[in-house]
């Protein structure tokens, strides 16, 4: 709220009083999604009415893997961070070295509080040398603003004003090309570029949350529907489908990607003191750049690494059999409780029973043998209790060459 005139300020405030009637707001793409919605399965994504599935969760998943899938990511929290000190500021806040992030590039990163506990993970888009976009699951405006004190940087939350789509799947490149986004073939994984749409710009990055070939498109919300239509028109021949979160969640798990407040608890939401996690405890240690200038949490992370302060580890598990082990307890030698599965599916791509689990070190770290999961499968009002052998495997669970192939293949 930048008005200085109190009357204008009041008018701006009063204009938005009515929000209480729609606690779940609509995305800019809502008219298109509503038109395609058959199952009426919605969920609350950060206050948006978002589709959990549109017509068939399983078929929606297969659209990601064998056709092209359109997923509305507008509810994702987005911050625009710009100014002469934007790079230095983000370098201070996040774990990776932002100086190494060139304009036109994206990286997956995370940020911590001073105790080294992860506040969130997300993607950082470097639009120009002094203009960034930070996307995340949770909201961080107070944290970013407070961290920005002393930096010449402007931080604006733009979740509502920017509409965004994830276009994922083997045919995603072909859809973009057919839609006339010339030059999109030049985008390598984690590249971004501006393209023309309706006389304005759409930012397209070769990124995604599926481990597949895919792109994300960001556009001013007023151009949302025309962008959707532009893709939809050409998508028909490529099997383009709109999908909900349930399908995406399968794909992301195959890709071994974690979700904040699902696979770990973010520091600002953890009520119980022992639920917070350091990056090394949730598989994000690779992001930490100890060589770069000071960043939030650095000292605590360093101390934890030196003094054995890392108590947990997040691992990928491959579990025998085909029954998903969701929220199963993990045991060592079938007796000692050592952790919990946070997400699990039987992977159609890997043809394996896969899971993400948080374990108490040294289990999962130096002791990886003789692990078991206890699966309680509810079948017709009875738990079928299964004790299944699990082994720690590297993530991602599937590796698709098409994700990184250059130029992207035309499916």
């Amino acid at each position, binding site marked *: *709220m930048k008005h200085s005139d*109190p009357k204008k300020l*009041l008018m701006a*405030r*009063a204009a*938005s*009083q*009515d*929000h*209480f*009637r729609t*606690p*779940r*707001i609509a995305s800019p793409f809502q008219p298109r999604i509503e038109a395609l919605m058959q199952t009426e399965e919605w969920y*609350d994504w*950060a*206050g948006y009415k978002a589709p959990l599935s549109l017509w068939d969760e399983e078929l929606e998943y297969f659209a990601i893997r064998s056709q092209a899938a359109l997923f509305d990511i507008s509810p994702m929290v987005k911050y625009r961070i710009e100014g002469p000190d934007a790079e230095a500021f983000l370098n201070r806040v996040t774990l990776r070295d932002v100086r190494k992030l060139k304009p036109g590039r994206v990286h997956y990163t995370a940020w911590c509080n001073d*105790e080294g506990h992860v506040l969130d993970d997300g993607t950082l888009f470097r639009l120009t040398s002094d203009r960034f976009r930070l996307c995340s699951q949770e*909201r*961080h*405006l*107070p944290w970013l*603003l407070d961290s920005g004190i002393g930096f010449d940087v402007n931080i604006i*939350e733009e979740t509502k004003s920017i509409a965004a789509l994830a276009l994922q799947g083997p045919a995603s490149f072909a859809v973009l090309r057919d839609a006339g986004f010339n030059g999109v073939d030049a985008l390598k994984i984690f590249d971004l570029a501006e393209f023309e749409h309706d006389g304005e710009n759409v930012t397209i990055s070769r990124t995604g949350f599926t481990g597949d070939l895919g792109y994300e498109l960001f556009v001013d919300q007023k151009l949302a529907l025309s962008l959707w239509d532009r893709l939809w028109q050409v998508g028909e021949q490529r099997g383009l489908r709109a999908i909900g979160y349930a399908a995406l969640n399968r794909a992301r798990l195959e890709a071994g990607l974690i979700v904040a407040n699902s696979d770990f608890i973010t520091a*600002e*939401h*953890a*009520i119980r*003191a*022992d639920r917070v996690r350091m990056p090394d405890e949730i598989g994000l240690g690779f992001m930490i750049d100890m060589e770069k200038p000071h960043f939030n949490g650095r000292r605590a992370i360093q101390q934890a690494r030196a003094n054995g302060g890392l108590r947990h580890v997040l691992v990928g598990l491959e579990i025998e059999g085909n029954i998903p082990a969701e929220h199963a307890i993990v045991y060592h030698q079938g007796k000692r409780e050592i952790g919990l599965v946070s997400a699990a599916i039987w992977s159609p791509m890997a043809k394996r029973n896969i899971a993400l689990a948080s374990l108490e070190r040294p289990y999962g770290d130096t002791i990886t043998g003789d692990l078991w999961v206890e699966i309680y499968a509810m079948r017709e009002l009875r738990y079928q209790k299964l004790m299944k052998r699990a082994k720690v495997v590297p993530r991602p669970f599937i590796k698709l060459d098409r994700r990184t192939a250059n130029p992207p293949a035309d499916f």
Partner: protein
Amino acid sequence: MHPAGLQLTPGIFLPMSEVKAVIVKFALHRFQVRMISVSVKVHRPNSRSTITQVTQNAIIFVEHSFNMHWTSHYFSCELWGKNSGNGYRMKSWDAIVIGAGHNGLVNACYLQRAGLDVLVLEKNDWIGGAATSRSLTPGFLYSNCSYVCSLFRPEIMRDLELPRFGLQVISYEGGAVFTQDGDYLANYRDHHAHRREFARFSPRDAEAYDRYARDVTRQCRFIQPLLMRTAADPTSFRPRDISELMYLGKKFAGLGATEMADTLRFWTMSISDFLDEYFETDVIKANFALSGIIGTALGPMSPGTAYVLLHHYMGEVDGSVGAWGYARGGMGAVTKALAASFEASGGTIRTGVEVDHVLVKNGSAKGVVLVDGEEIQGKMVVSNADVKRTFLKLVEEKELPDIFLRRVRNFKMRGSSGKVNIALDSMPEFPALPKDSPVYRGDMHFTDSVERMERGYDDWKAGRWSADPFLDMVIPTTLDPTMAPPGKHFMSCFVQYCPPKVEGKEWTDADRDAFGETVISQIADYSPGFRDRIIHMEVRTPRELEAEVGLTEGNIFQGELTFDQLLFNRPVPGYAQYRSPVGGLYMCGSSTHPGGGVMGAPGRNAAAEILRDLSRGTKHMSPAHDVI
């Protein structure tokens, strides 16, 4: 004349002349007839009495509500039995509870259910203490003291079967602070609506709310399990005190290093300082600060007020944590259900009987003496009255240790609030609010900055009521149709600050009216035509609250909830386990741990201690809900 000579049957008329000489008031209880001396009590009908009307020369008996039928035959036989030998024998109750407030009744219920024979004495003609519903103008019921419900412990509701005895709590969905520029800041139950509402004023503060909520929740989780436990005595080496202290220590150690530091700060800092750590917008801070000053003679900038806020966050309505609601039928529904539960288990309540003093013999309580001289014997006495009333008025000084008396005198129980109850001809309008806003059904406030609150407190310090008071205003009839005729409404305004004396002088009726006017004019500023809707109004200053409810200085918590008066220091160090220096005299009011609010925990905890002293079981008391 001998009472047994009278043939008493329900519905007959008795000539007054005959009755005068005999014991005229009686109550049936467990196949016994108890006799009580002749006095004014006859003309005070209450739900327990068989006498509902007195005329010049007759008492009219009508059907009564005992759990057994009595007949004249039975009645006279019993009287004979009682009076054989040397006059009638006085009944000695297992326990006498002074005061039928919610804690007194909770206590009495638990004792009665443990098999004790319990008598509750209430000075007013109605029960409830500060949790009562009163009809002061036709068609309307006022929750004329406490007015919203959240803190009442669900374990107690369950044990005493209060839903079965008619208690229903309706949670409300919103609330707001009106701003002076014509807008408002609402509180919505939906998390995202709440955030968007705050974002209208500050996007930053809107998101800071999560961090605030996390920290407050952490503190609540630490405190909540202590509510239903007797505070440990740190000076004692008894195993249970040591284990209780260890429990506390273990819980404390369970906090992280940062949280530990936060906890100590939280318990000692001002609500204003605490909120400054999270928020930057005046109205948002004012919105939260109000919970830190309610019922407390401190300003939002006074150290210690952060804890008071916590006290108001620990409630729930039927499992919905943090929710507040209206008891259907007013707050009296809480005590009405308690009384029904108590009587169903065989307990006896007498209203309209004021205790003059506790009968103490050889350092032990043996009963009570009423104002009219009647003596009632009891094996123990439990006082629901506040600690000052109990030990400065009801017990002779000579029975109490000097240091104890001094501590009681210095216990902070300062009058800081008043209450205005209003019957409205129609629903008031607040043009700032959309017509369908849920705020109408919740708590409304007009103080939009912490500074205004603090200035209100400045007036109090000078011995005046706040010229610009802080109001906690609700219209329960938006959700509860039982409290007013259709289309009409009951409005409750809690008002702070209001001094126990006006510039050192006793309150006068003119003062009281001027105080009421201050409140009405504040509401009218935000609600055009408000005055015209008023049918009836009850203005209660600390004077009325003390005189009627018996709360010293009208303090709603029977003692302020600052950290120096909590846990093992409440009300007096060494006497924080519901016992007193007088043997057999217990405390069960809000002056004791864990303090005020319509919570019931002091009454329950006191019952647990009493039963422990009697070596009786407490199987009928549910353990406190788990906090995991």
